[in-house]
């Protein structure tokens, strides 16, 4: 629902990094716990970049699964469809998120112009 706003933030970082070079691809890493719909993000990106210096630049999304670590027993588990942050191994009440909250630009493919 906020993918348009995110596209603006992404474009700001991309332009600053590209520094006049043509942007072919932008590689993103997005955790599953981030409320971002990759298809919607790609659609919004194509809409907002059309007719600009970023026209044609492709967004490539690497989705990172949510993994939880129990601070009591150290058990690491993948989060299933049911959003339960309790520990499956020791009944600990609250696991920490080991991965799944990432939201960053990891790399860009650029061409000198």
């Amino acid at each position, binding site marked *: 629902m906020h993918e*348009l706003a995110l596209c603006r933030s992404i474009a700001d970082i991309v332009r600053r990094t590209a520094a006049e070079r043509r942007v072919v691809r932008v590689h993103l890493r997005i955790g599953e716990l981030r409320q971002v719909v990759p298809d919607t993000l790609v659609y919004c990106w194509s809409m907002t970049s059309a007719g600009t210096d970023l026209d044609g630049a492709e967004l490539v999304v690497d989705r990172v699964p949510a993994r939880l670590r129990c601070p009591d027993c150290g058990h690491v588990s993948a989060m299933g469809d049911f959003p339960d942050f309790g520990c499956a191994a020791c009944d600990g009440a609250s696991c920490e998120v080991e991965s799944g909250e990432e939201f960053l630009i990891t790399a860009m*493919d650029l061409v000198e112009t």
Partner: protein
Amino acid sequence: MGRFHRHDDGPAHSHDDHSGYATGIERVEVLERIFDENDRLAAANRADLAAAGVWSVNLMSSPGAGKTALLRETLVRLAGVTRIGVVEGDIETSLDADRLAGFGAEIALVNTGNGFGGECHLDAPMVRSALPRLPLADLDLVLIENVGNLVCPAEFDVGEHARAMVYSITEGEEKPLKYPVMFRSADLVLINKIDLLPHLDFDLELFRANLRAVNPRVATIGTSARTGDGVDEWCAWLISRGARPARR
């Protein structure tokens, strides 16, 4: 020299991508968080508020959960007790800000449809634009009423010191499971419209179990803006928490 290396004059990048040679494409490693700019301004907001001795709470809920009615009761009770500023976020209209006027609080309206593209949430730059319209030096507490939405507001740090959610029991027991990011981000959940409990098939214990699954340590207060149930307890939470140093 490895696939990725770092020059003194810029970020790491690779030279041994053979398809890259063919097309002239160069891969540049970036590793920049997309929320960096928002989070930088959120930290600035938090610092400005703290420097003025103000504690702030980001109030979030779905549309119609009763944020504004509860806020109005809060202002009535805390008038003369603590000095309150309100940042009122709405996509359009000043209807909610109008409902909060006349209770002694300073109000700064942010219409996200006006210059912010109709955003479904408040972000740190929007709150930053509203703070100069509040007399921070004369305030103790700033309540930030976010746009009614259980998805986007959870993602954006606006510079608050704590997050409170208004959940209404008419929304059903499964809301925490459907919106775990929002419920997990809250420091306090107000279980609102609690006066309707005898009239609904709502299972309060099932709701609490679902809430514990996503946020085991969260505090809860049952409230009703209509009858006033729990509102004093909520006000006490605001005052007692506000007296402590900022959490973040």
